[in-house]
């Protein structure tokens, strides 16, 4: 702990600078220096310290990223308690919070500086399409449990918000290259320019490539479309502060990704082009801290080659406008009122019979936090979402629905309620209840496709009669600061009930292919998460966590099979002179996964459930600071091959990277 005078001076600096910076969206760097811990707005929508947030949240800091040796976000996330990972290919990963990992229909909302990067059309998070490099990231905030009352539909298992450095106050000037086995070739560069005292801009470019190794079954693959995983990314982030303290933030980004991903078992070779533009404004006004944000995201897949359906193309567009007001009444009550409108549309070409599916959403939300005393506070939030569904364009003969069947609406009320009590100077208790709401994706509503003969030749289709489904979540958390060790111990228990599941049109249920999206029986998930961690102090850091997760399905939809019961993560780091050494280990108990084989001239397709054995990963890192501005790093990402899904084997990966900071 730094001496009190350090914090007095920090407070003085914040006071002295209050006028020009008071309206920043959140001055993460200065507040972190003042409080000695990360700060966040993701937990409740209001600024708060990590130790004060009533939700169960973990933060991966820039220092954690530096020592991780990881080259992507899913690898970083996998080292936390309660996170499940599955690879569809060397460049494609599905991430789940507390179970329910599935190829399509992710229950995790992923945000980049508050912008949703979740694809409404497919209900999926494609991590490699995110226009962000690890060196740009200030912190990654992971909230476990439903957060629909703040973020809306589909934030039902958790929220992952990636916060980048502020181009106005935190310059990132770095060039990084990486080579490795499997023809790994990565490069990225960031340049930050300050335009006077009140404006800054950061530009980042990146290119990645790796050989498409590890696929276990290439039958049915079309070599014309089978590409190695590759990624090109460009982003421009800017900030401007006016004399009255109003702040404007903008993002302009483009990514172009080739990848192989999995739906059911058959894989899709895909090219995905993503473009996004965002503008946000935050200002302290007479009525509180007002934020207005608008963004538009376009996802185009010029070709998708599926061994089960043949090649097709599709596109997905999302436009969002959000308005919120954050204010405090008296000394103990904080409020946030918000509204959001959203337009999403998916044109899937031949896969939707040439039609366009649309969803128009309107939502209102209210958050109220009350401090009973300096050590006990409570937060309550509600949000109501209403979605209008529409379809236009031609209808194929295979589709049992016509456009008028899609003229309907769905509504849902989400609730979050939590209590945090600091029972001693070093102990905190958290109790929370949430009702999250999950909405079918546009794909669930209206996709139509015909399997090729090798996969049975039958048609599957979406279902415009689907409804939303509720998830009830109860959590109890205890956190203790171990001052003598400089560590934090946390214990979290959760019980979650999913009332119904929206079965995907790709589903394989209890041994049979399912050819229509529908509302399936619910499930119950119970779990325990234990973690202890010590951030870098005196050259040493260490961490350990254990997750026990039990999932019971009322009907076999495959979630239980995909859910490991036990997970353990260990980490140890040491810095000595110009050298840094880190070691990460992970154990995951066995699961089961689906396999599908196409039929030949004399037989039909075959499918079944196969065992995926337990696995252990060991990932060491050694880095040498050759100069103040030059870091050379050697990493073995996993020292033994392992599998975390049916179709993909992850071979050992070795990297050598050079990072130049200027």
């Amino acid at each position: 702990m730094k001496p009190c005078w350090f914090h007095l001076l920090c407070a003085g600096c914040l006071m002295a600078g209050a006028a020009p910076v008071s309206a920043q969206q959140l001055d993460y760097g200065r507040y972190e220096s003042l409080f000695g811990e990360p700060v966040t707005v993701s937990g409740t929508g209001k600024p708060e310290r990590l130790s004060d947030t009533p939700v169960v949240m973990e933060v991966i800091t820039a220092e954690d990223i530096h020592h991780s040796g990881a080259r992507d976000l899913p690898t970083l996330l996998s080292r936390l308690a309660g996170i499940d990972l599955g690879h569809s290919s060397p460049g494609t990963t599905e991430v789940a919070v507390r179970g329910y990992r599935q190829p399509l229909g992710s229950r995790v909302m992923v945000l980049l500086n508050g912008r949703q990067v979740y694809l409404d059309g497919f209900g999926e998070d494609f991590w490699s399409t995110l226009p962000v490099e690890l060196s740009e990231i200030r912190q990654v905030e992971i909230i476990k449990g439903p957060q629909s009352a703040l973020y809306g539909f589909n934030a039902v298992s958790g929220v992952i918000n990636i916060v980048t450095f502020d181009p106005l106050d935190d310059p990132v000037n770095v060039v990084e290259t990486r080579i490795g086995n499997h023809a790994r070739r990565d490069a990225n560069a960031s340049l930050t320019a300050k335009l006077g005292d009140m404006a800054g801009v950061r530009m980042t470019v990146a290119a990645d490539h790796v050989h498409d190794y590890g696929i276990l079954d290439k039958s049915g693959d079309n070599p014309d479309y089978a590409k190695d995983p590759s990624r090109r990314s460009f982003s421009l982030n800017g900030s401007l502060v006016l004399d009255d303290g109003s702040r404007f933030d903008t993002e302009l980004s483009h990514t172009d990704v080739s990848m192989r991903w999995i739906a059911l078992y058959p894989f899709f070779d895909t090219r995905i082009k993503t473009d996004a533009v965002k503008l946000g404004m935050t200002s302290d006004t007479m009525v509180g801290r007002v934020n207005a944000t608008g963004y538009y995201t376009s996802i185009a897949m010029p070709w998708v080659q599926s061994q089960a359906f043949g090649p097709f193309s599709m596109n997905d567009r999302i436009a969002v406008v959000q308005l919120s007001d954050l204010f405090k009444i008296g000394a103990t009550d904080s409020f946030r009122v918000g509204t959001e409108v959203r337009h999403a549309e998916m044109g899937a070409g031949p896969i939707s019979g040439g039609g366009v599916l649309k969803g128009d959403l309107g939502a209102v939300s209210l958050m109220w936090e009350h401090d009973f005393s300096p050590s006990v506070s409570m937060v309550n939030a509600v949000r109501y979402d209403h979605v209008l569904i529409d379809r236009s364009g031609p209808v194929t003969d295979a589709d049992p629905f016509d456009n008028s069947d899609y003229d309907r609406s769905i509504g849902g009320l989400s609730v979050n309620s939590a209590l945090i009590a600091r029972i001693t100077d070093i102990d905190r208790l958290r109790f929370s209840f949430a009702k999250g709401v999950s909405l079918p994706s546009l794909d669930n509503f209206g996709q139509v496709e015909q399997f090729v003969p090798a996969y049975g030749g039958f048609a599957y289709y979406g279902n415009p009669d689907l409804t939303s489904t509720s998830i009830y979540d109860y959590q109890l958390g205890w956190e203790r600061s171990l001052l003598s060790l400089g560590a934090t111990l946390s214990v979290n228990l959760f019980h979650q009930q999913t009332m119904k599941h929206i079965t995907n049109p790709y589903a394989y249920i209890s041994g049979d292919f399912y050819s229509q999206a529908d509302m399936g029986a619910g499930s119950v998930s119970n779990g325990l998460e234990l973690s202890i961690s010590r951030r870098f102090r005196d050259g040493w850091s260490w961490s350990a966590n254990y997750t026990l997760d039990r999932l019971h399905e009322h009907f076999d939809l495959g979630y239980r099979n995909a859910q490991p019961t036990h997970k353990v993560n260990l980490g140890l780091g040491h810095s000595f002179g110009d050298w840094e050494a880190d070691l990460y280990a992970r154990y995951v108990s066995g699961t089961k996964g689906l396999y599908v084989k196409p039929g030949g001239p004399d037989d039909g397709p075959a499918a079944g459930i196969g065992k995926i054995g337990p696995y252990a990963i060991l990932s060491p890192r050694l880095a040498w600071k050759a100069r103040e501005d030059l870091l050379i790093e050697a990493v073995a990402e996993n020292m033994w091959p392992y599998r975390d899904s049916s179709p993909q084997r992850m071979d050992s990966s070795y990297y050598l990277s050079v990072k130049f900071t200027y």
Partner: protein
Amino acid sequence: MVPFLLDVHNLVGAPAFQVGFLAAGLQSSYGPIGEFARKRGVVTISADLSCVRIGGCVVGVSSIPRVEVWLNRRLSEDAHIGFSEAFRMMVTEY
């Protein structure tokens, strides 16, 4: 910021300034210091949280076992010192 020392017994003749850090051992002067802050619009900051409770300081900071920041809301309003909503939501207002 350009720092200078100020004698708490000679506040009347003090030059204009924005932020004042209180040294230890000034408990007996919290009353006059608070009055000075109120009239001159000075942000007074102390490591003694009782200074905030008494109304001598606008801001109090302690750092053990964790950093705590206290804000005297009435004194800051009387002194016409405004804080951003973000800052107010992360501190304890008294």
